[in-house]
């Protein structure tokens, strides 16, 4: 009997607040396309009781075949000792050289541009009041991904996509992952490196 083909494992890293339904839709989209989706919010991260939440998530990054990071203006509550789980997952995926794709919310892209242009006359800088829709730390994640990550050569192609609505995110996922043979070849290339 032929050995059952292993499903490709994709890890989705994202903050959740205000994005539950959208995140569920993206998880379902990839599951329906027959990928094995790993996402902590959907309880599909294997949990080793001897490891911390963060370590379990980072272990999941190690096990995945490719990685999708979603960077939103909301930074998230999954912070342990100043470490943000989503950010740590992203850093690990980049460090391990996993094939990765990023979806970046328009507000993060815009805020980065805007805040980069702000100069205060009194030289005291600015503060952003605590709120539920934007955390400037989300820009740190974005900066890490676009500036401090892997060398530019590895970031060929449309590896990051700005999005605003769910349909934009899903259209990108569909375009990137609808062709499974293409994904398989990418994973193979990355393993051969």
């Amino acid at each position, binding site marked *: 009997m032929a050995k059952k083909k292993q499903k490709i494992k994709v890890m989705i890293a994202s903050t959740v607040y205000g994005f539950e339904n959208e995140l569920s839709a993206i998880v379902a989209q990839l599951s329906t396309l027959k990928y094995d989706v790993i996402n902590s919010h959907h309880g599909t991260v294997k949990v080793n009781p001897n490891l911390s939440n963060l370590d379990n998530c980072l272990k999941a990054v190690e096990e995945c075949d490719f990685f999708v990071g979603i960077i939103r203006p909301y930074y998230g509550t999954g912070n342990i000792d100043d470490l943000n789980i989503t950010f740590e997952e992203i850093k690990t995926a980049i460090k391990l050289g996993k094939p990765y794709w990023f979806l970046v919310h328009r507000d993060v892209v815009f805020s980065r541009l805007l805040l980069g242009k702000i100069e205060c006359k009194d030289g005291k800088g600015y503060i952003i009041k605590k709120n539920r829709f934007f955390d400037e730390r989300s820009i740190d994640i974005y900066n890490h991904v676009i500036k401090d990550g892997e060398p530019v050569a590895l970031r060929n192609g449309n590896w990051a996509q700005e999005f605003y609505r769910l349909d934009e995110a*899903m259209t990108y996922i569909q375009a990137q992952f609808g062709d499974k043979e293409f994904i398989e070849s990418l994973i193979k290339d990355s393993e051969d490196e």
Partner: protein
Amino acid sequence: MNNSFIVKNLLAKEEGTRLEFKADVSQAAIAKIVTSFINTEGGDVIIGIDDDKEVIGIEHAERKLSSLQQTLLESIKPEAPISFQIINYKNKDVILISTWEGANKPYQFKNIIYVREKATTKVSDVNSITNLIAERKNADFHWERRTVLAAELDNLSQTEIEKTIVLYKQRYTKATILDNEDFLVQTGLVRNNNLTNACVLLFASLPLRFIPQSPIRITVFPGSETGDTFLGDRLLNRNIFENIEDALDYLDIVFGKTIEVVDNLRTERHNYPQLAIREALMNAVVHRDYNSVNSFLQINVFADRTEISNYGTLPEGITIKDLKKEHNSILRNPDIAQICFTRRYIEMLGSGTLRMINDCKINGFKTPKWEEGDKTFKVIFEGVKHKNSNEGVNEGVNEGVKYIVFKDINEGVNKTLNDVLGIIRNNPELNTNEIANQIGKGVSTTERYLKLLKEENLIVFLGYPKTGGYVLKEHLDRLK
């Protein structure tokens, strides 16, 4: 209401895109079918019917429904409008699950997206996912989801949001809601920190400030035509829930009640098909096209009929003929509909027009008529009329006006007795002579009428015989 007629209607049809019969409660199979309905055109599943359309019924239906309901509400994502009910049909319990077509596609059960193709439920393929994404995109561009840039959380009625959260938690028992803002974010009424049009219509303290076309108008005309004179005219300009309550309360007064008095026992009945009027109002609220400054929702009450009309025609693919049979319900304002469903202003999904017809029938009214204009839609209830065109339904006097039918007394005297009650209501503590003058009858006749009204416990005499007068018993009761 007995909804067995719905089962009868559905059994006359064959399984298809919008209908499936199931013999037993197999939860996963039913969840997949329901998910596929929500992703396609909505529809109905009847459980307790075998492949030959034989009604076999479900034992312990209530217990099974409770468990099934929990599974469906927790596992189908995002939250979707699904209604559940047990209907006794031919002495057997069957379970009816109805859904609308969802407006937050794609919907999924246990992380898999299902779609309906004719009578088959199947896992979505690449093409159908692409179609669902396109439908989602269209839905997100709809007027309801556009943001009202000037509106802020402070402009909303926190009480109405809190009432909604209470009912939402009863449906989704595991939901965690941090606060009112969190609820609006979770339900998509606040998007990227902006309030949507739907949010403002549903919850703003004064939506008129942001959406001038939001009010409901009710006008009561003396005759059977519109004109310059009217008996009552109300512009309801609060949020949707307050407007619905205000409209129903006002209509209740305009149509009035009939009280039958037999041997001192009073029974009240509405002079109008309550469920049908409520359903028609909800249809207009949910289906009206708000996306124009010309948008309106107008209720006209005449001496011979009532008309509820709104801006916006029937959705493409639905005709007036379809309204008289089972049909796909295409929602123009799904976010508003979803919250109205949570608030239980919409109790059952689908079959709304059929239930209106049924309610009119069992209450002795004609079948409602629907008319579609160039940009408008209207439902007409013949025979559903205001209480009394001669005396007027004027605003002040109107409160609590009820026409009482005294058994075994001729119609003329019945009317005079009601006139006497009206006079006492508006002018408490008149004596017999004063009342006699007002009704134009002799004192002894008037005394007879007053005696009868006292015997029926409707009025009482207050004060000394020479200086006192009559008041309504209900006014006294209210003061207690």
